[in-house]
């Protein structure tokens, strides 16, 4: 995308002007195919938008300077013109073309983002549970769980399955791609992928109560082998999570990073709570999940 780069050049001066720099400007510093697709789309639109701004501002400036009331033109009588069909058709048609030029890649990208960016690598799944005010990451295949940080293998698409216990949050790692909401009783899916190992800031983008501003997490992308190594290490060294501990974690408040060698999905999946499509997944003894199961049982079908 040479064209896109060229347009980026137009934006960058503004960034420097305002004391930021590209690395800091996370959205314009894509570190994975998803973010890059969005970056390209953004840059594509920025080009058109700058074109519109230039046209309007130029006309505006020229008309203002030329047609202001001056002592010289005191006797000038502005013409009584109703309009100009040709001009009006032109400035209706051009926006239509611009909208079309934006709509096509938008629709394409919107559909593409629902699928893993690459077919070659099998994606991994991580369940994300937002709670007041922490992020819980469960790896169902690896059977480990982390709080407030998440390790992912670079170059592998990651399917984040998002849900929430309580207020709605939004899962956003700007350098890796756009966000999606994590909502109670629902499961949303966000696919991200990192190009290379590195650390990326993530945060909640949707207000969820008092300590919402502190709902940050770190995404650590590692090479495949490093990731495996980390998983094994966690499995061997991290403590087990039990329901008591888990209930404690869910209590409103801030917690630090935590690591466990099993997942809470064994006894509860909040995404299945309260939803219509309950699949009747067996849930263990605890009261809450029992209730959740009956609640979600659909009588009619």
């Amino acid at each position, binding site marked *: 995308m040479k064209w896109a780069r060229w347009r980026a050049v137009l934006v960058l001066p*503004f960034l420097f002007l*305002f*004391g*930021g*720099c590209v690395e*800091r*400007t*996370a*959205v314009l510093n894509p570190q994975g195919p998803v*973010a890059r697709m*969005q970056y390209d*789309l953004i840059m594509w*639109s920025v080009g058109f*938008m700058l074109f519109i*701004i230039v046209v*309007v*501002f130029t*006309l*505006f400036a020229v008309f*203002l300077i030329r*047609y202001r*009331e001056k002592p010289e*033109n005191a006797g000038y009588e*502005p013409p*009584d*013109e*109703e*309009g*100009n069909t040709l001009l*009006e058709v032109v400035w*209706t048609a*051009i*926006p239509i073309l611009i*909208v079309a030029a934006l*709509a096509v890649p*938008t*629709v394409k*990208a919107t*559909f593409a983002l629902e699928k893993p960016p690459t077919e070659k690598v099998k994606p991994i799944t991580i369940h994300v549970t937002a709670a007041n005010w922490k992020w819980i990451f469960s790896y169902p295949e690896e059977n480990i769980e982390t709080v407030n940080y998440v390790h992912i293998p670079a170059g592998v698409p990651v399917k984040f399955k998002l849900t929430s216990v*309580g207020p*709605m949050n939004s899962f956003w790692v700007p350098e890796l*791609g*756009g*966000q*999606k*909401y994590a909502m*109670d*009783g*629902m499961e949303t899916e966000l696919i991200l992928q990192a190009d290379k190992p590195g650390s990326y800031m993530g945060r909640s*983008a*949707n*207000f*969820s*109560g008092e300590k*919402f*501003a502190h709902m940050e997490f770190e995404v650590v992308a590692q090479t495949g082998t490093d990731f495996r190594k980390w998983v094994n290490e966690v499995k061997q060294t991290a403590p087990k999570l039990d329901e008591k501990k888990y209930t404690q974690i869910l209590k409103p408040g801030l917690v630090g990073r935590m690591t466990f060698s099993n997942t809470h999905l064994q006894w509860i999946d909040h995404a299945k*709570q*309260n939803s219509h499509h309950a699949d009747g997944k067996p849930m263990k003894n605890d009261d809450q999940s029992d*209730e959740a199961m009956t*609640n979600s049982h659909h009588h009619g079908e």
Partner: protein
Amino acid sequence: MKWSEFFVTGEPLIYAADVAIVLTMVGIVFVLTYFKKWKWLWNEWLTTVDHKKIGVMYIICAVLMLFRGGVDALLMRAQLTAPNMKFLDAQHYNEIFTTHGTIMILFMAMPFIIGLMNIVVPLQIGARDVAFPYLNALSFWLFFFGALLFNISFVIGGSPDAGWTAYFPLAGNEFSHGVGNNYYAVALQISGIGTLMTGINFLVTILKMRAPGMTLMRMPMFTWTILITCVLIIFAFPVLTVALALMTFDRVFGTQFFTMANGGMSMLWANLFWIWGHPEVYIVILPSFGIFSEVVSTFAQKRLFGYKAMVGSIVGIAFLSFIVWVHHFFTMGAGPAVNSAFSITTMAIAIPTGVKIFNWLFTIRKGKIRFTTAMLWSLAFIPNFVIGGVTGVMLAMAAADYQYHNSYFLIAHFHYVLIAGTVFACFAGLHYWYPKMFGHILNERLGKWTFWLFMIGFNVCFFPMYFLGLMGMTRRMYTYSAGLGWTPLNVVATVGAVLMGIGFIVLCYNIYYSARYGERDMTGDPWNGRTLEWATASPPVHYNFPVTPVVEDVDAYWVMKKKYGGFHVKEEDLKPIHMPSNSGRPFWMSVAFFVAGFGLVFKWFALAIVGALFIVLGLILRSFEDDDGYHIPVDEIKRMERAARKGA
């Protein structure tokens, strides 16, 4: 409930506010008593059904609310100036941004617009009053007491703290235990009912009470935008009514609409809120377009370019505004088909909006532009709104929106459209129609100071926010850490906010200064206007026009001036004028609404029922009322006309 829960305590700011409120109250009571103005207040204002006075009261409230919302904004900017600031705590910050948003949209922008339309629309169409003057008074008082109810939450019971969008489950009983969000639900409900009635009232007024000869396609552009806005109000506000009612049921009566258990669904709230919320945006922006059209055409001294296209684009925008709401929650997982469809409808709004921008540009082309304050606001609107508009198109692109959503990019965008659109329009309209309202002109020098301070401040405040958004700063954060690199831009933004605040102070001073020393408008037409409101005296006599004017073309008054040298009334044409009587009932019925609402907020159902009974009583009394108003005899009209035109 304990007294300590009833009265908000703990913060010095709140004690200061308590003291200020008490002192203001005492002051007002003292002044009214000392100058023996109680009777005047009741007869001239509280019981009035005159659309011009009601409009003035709307605008006074809107300016007060602009002050309150502005103070909220400055507090937020102060807190965000530097990382890890301890100026406000999280809870306080959350309450402030919630009230800022709610107040600015519902209690500032809307009443300002409704105030201007109250004053101007009947004059522009050559009518004596609105179709239902009594209902109009009720609308105002419902708005007023709704706003009052919302504002007392600050000192009694606690403010709402779940954002102006009040998303569930955060705003539900599970996470919001105080009465703050009850206030939100009930106060918005009460003022919303008033707004709905205004919509019906003005729709009927515009459709049925235009002066002879004023066909739809000869209506002034502002009237056109109000007509369409009324349609939006009529079909959007019932959705808010229902959403708020369901919220009240959930919070007060324990139903399960948006709860986390027993099948409740928080997404439903977002869906209903935005079905209303998006048309709401156009309810405040379309009239602004109307104001700009009037002002630009008047001060370019040239008729509006492409009148028909302008009308068509308003209708188009209004139509589209009902089918775009999902773009407020593209990230809620509705899937690519839904997102794509709403993405396209949203972008399509840019087309009619673009048409309008070019029509305004070509209105000033070949014109003879006079840079009055009103014109400066209108001209500044064009480039600023275009910045807001194009970033709006960027936000409309679903796939890209995932990166902008809920970030400061979004904040910057909607402040660019709402301030450069609505607030600039309110200021333009205020300066433009001020002589019509009060008979004197707002000082131009001070006006220009306000303009430059506010306009520059606005850009300094909000332009950096686009970049803060791209840097990952999300909305509603009460603090941020130092290492993120967000500090410089936040400092700049705060400076801008302060400039805007100074601009507002200059405006207030200007109102005072002009009242004392301002240039009186004796002609009724200080700007060489084009539409019928300039054919009456400034301020107009309460019956507006001694005889109904006859309209021959668009820009009716302009044509009259060209053809006949003005609007002349022959004394032999005068006939007795029928006018509606004043009534105190809208006022006390709204008090009853307030009482019922207050009871509902605190779940004091006995009080709520008492309030409700008084509302019913008011309705019954109204039904049995047999008051046909009164007639002003011809001699009286002659006398008043001479008095109003004295010195012309």
